[in-house]
């Protein structure tokens, strides 16, 4: 009746028990059987044979299969390393292990008057994942990408041992690691720069966007008075109404009362449960109806409303059903960053394509970006457009169209959001693709940390 003792090292080239698991990318498009170890002690990380290919997996919320091993790789689940190591309430510097979730950081920081200024929308995403994917939030134009809050990090690589990295010590490896998809090594911990909370609530103003072409102007005119800003568009509306939607501009309500930090409600979802409904809800008809209903209901409410910080920062925590509606087959997300002066071309091309090829775009959303690109980071100046479509022939056609469009407009696709992005497109859109690949090889000639993503992109 008891578990058998762990298998010996010969079983998997590790001294750790290994499970053969069927993993699914969050978008549902990549399914692979993987050898997964689940270390929960530091010595476990050193027990893997030094020449064994490997990759670290965090919460598993990446749309691309960045946490899946390349052929022959061992996947190391890093979620047991989820402890907060220190928090300086005077400076706002928090140090934590890489498996620490954003929700846990919020739980620690919020009652003490601090918050992490850059974060994606689901609380179970790990800090290591945020570093590896160099994620952004709804305030990218003001606070930049995640690498901007990383003061330093600790990295384990069997060839180099444990390294402490920051912008001064080992700057090249630090830069390769922030936005490096976990390919430089196992991120052990990080020191993060938190921001003081100007208030505990966020006031969100809603502004109508009559047509997609007006998006850039509206974002730029509202950005100076906003801390957070993003838009939602209906790309299934035709004619003049194409891309109609709303701009949402959020700012902290200064002096808002310090509320008790009750445990916020989080609806659980992960890459395995997302596709638990076999049949997808979204198709051409239902998507149009869904978008039209969403457009109307959004328009009914007051033009300004207040939200607690947690539901504002982590909207997905209460809206997981949106992802479940794609069913087992899943979806595609394209997130592209287009230079400001090419927005008009983007808008007219999209209007033209979607007019000719009606496509069930379930979500279209824009953010304003400011930053300096480096390596394969999704960073720079311009407009970020995210588009979701159900997996299928329409989505496939849209992918091909957007690949060409983003390349022709001098933009860049977000590698971590696109589980099928071809190597040629990544290479064409990221001028530092070769520099990144060469940097990885200089640091690790054996390229021990390898994933499905790195294999697909030729890294």
């Amino acid at each position, binding site marked *: *009746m008891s578990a058998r003792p762990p298998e010996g090292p010969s079983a998997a080239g590790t001294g750790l028990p290994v499970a053969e698991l069927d993993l699914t990318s969050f978008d549902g498009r990549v399914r692979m059987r993987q050898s997964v170890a689940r270390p929960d002690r530091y010595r476990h990380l050193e027990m893997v044979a030094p020449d064994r290919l490997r990759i670290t997996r965090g919460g598993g919320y990446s749309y691309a299969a960045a946490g899946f091993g390349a052929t022959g790789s061992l996947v190391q689940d890093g979620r047991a390393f989820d402890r907060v190591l220190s928090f300086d309430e005077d400076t706002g510097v928090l140090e934590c292990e890489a498996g620490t979730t954003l929700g846990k950081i919020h739980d620690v920081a919020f009652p003490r008057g601090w918050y992490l200024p850059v974060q994606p929308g689901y609380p179970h995403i790990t800090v290591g994942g945020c570093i590896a994917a160099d994620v952004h939030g709804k305030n990218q134009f003001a606070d930049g990408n995640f690498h901007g809050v990383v003061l330093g990090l600790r990295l384990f690589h069997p060839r180099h041992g444990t390294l402490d990295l920051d912008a001064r010590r080992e700057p090249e490896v630090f830069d390769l690691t922030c936005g490096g998809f976990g390919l430089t090594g196992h991120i052990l911990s990080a020191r993060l720069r938190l921001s003081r909370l100007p208030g505990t609530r966020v006031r969100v103003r809603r502004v109508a966007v009559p047509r997609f072409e007006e998006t850039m102007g509206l974002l730029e005119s509202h950005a100076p008075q906003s801390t957070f800003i993003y838009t939602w568009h209906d790309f299934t509306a035709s004619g003049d109404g194409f891309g109609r939607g709303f701009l949402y501009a959020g700012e902290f309500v200064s002096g808002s009362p310090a509320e008790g930090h009750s445990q916020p409600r989080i609806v659980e979802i992960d890459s395995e449960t997302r596709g638990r409904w076999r049949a997808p809800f979204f198709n051409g008809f239902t998507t149009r109806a869904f978008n039209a209903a969403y457009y109307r209901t959004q328009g009914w409410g007051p033009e300004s409303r207040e939200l607690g910080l947690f539901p504002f920062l982590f909207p997905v925590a209460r809206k997981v059903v949106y992802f479940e509606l794609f069913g087992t087959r899943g979806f595609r997300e394209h997130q592209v960053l287009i230079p400001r002066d090419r927005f008009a071309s983007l808008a007219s091309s999209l209007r033209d394509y979607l007019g000719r090829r009606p496509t069930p775009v379930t979500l279209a959303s824009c953010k304003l970006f400011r930053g300096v690109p480096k390596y394969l980071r999704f960073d720079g100046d311009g407009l970020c457009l995210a588009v979701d479509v159900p997996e299928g022939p329409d989505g496939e056609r849209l992918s091909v169209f957007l690949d060409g469009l983003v390349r022709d407009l001098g933009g860049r696709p977000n590698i971590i959001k696109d589980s099928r992005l071809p190597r040629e497109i990544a290479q064409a859109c990221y001028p530092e693709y070769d520099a990144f690949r060469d940097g990885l090889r200089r640091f690790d000639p054996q390229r021990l940390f390898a994933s499905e993503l790195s294999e697909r992109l030729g890294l």
Partner: protein
Amino acid sequence: MTWIVVGASAGLGRAIAESLGREGRSLVLVAGDERDLAPLSADLEVAGARIRVIAHDAADHAGLASRIAESLSPEEEIEGLLFPVGAMAPGDDGTLSPEEAERLVRINFLCATSIVGGLLPRMLRQGKGVIAGFGSVAAVRGRSQNVVYAASKRALESYFESLRHLGEGRGLSVVFYTLGYLDTGLAYGKRLLFPKADPARVAGRVRRELGRESGGRYEPRWWGMLAAVVRRLPWFVFRRLRF
């Protein structure tokens, strides 16, 4: 008012330590590797707990018992002494070397007897406190697998029965948990007959019960029924089972 958790760095021990730490308790956390204790200690201190750590191999039970006793101030009251500690060994099929077998007995059994032996007079003097041991369903009936592991855990169960008898009417609450499959490193990657319980949930239940009563418990509870059935299986049936 201090809680001592032996085997605190992973699995159920870590989950129990986290449960107590979130209550802001004073804890002495014991495990073999400083590298695992340091982050746990830091995390629980941020959560408001007061932590001391002792990094010491549980197989050196006498040395460990001394270090735990030395870590406590003379007037410090021990609220709980918990032993979610254990070790298995590959090839525990009756052919373990004497050294390997002795190591299992030291960790699974003598570790508790040495530490309790050193602290029991103090706990009896204070007239209150909780002592909790953690066994395994592997020890319900001896099988051809995990031979020494099961024997050492059954010895531990007998020891805790004695402790309960000894503490009766003297303010001690002595409880022994027989654990079913838990989703920890020991069971990870194994195809098992029954589902694995989440250590955090088990730790939550254990924490709620600690100090309320003495005796034996199964965790998860339904393992009690299964163990009763297995215990009553006639030999001609049991001998054919391979599990």
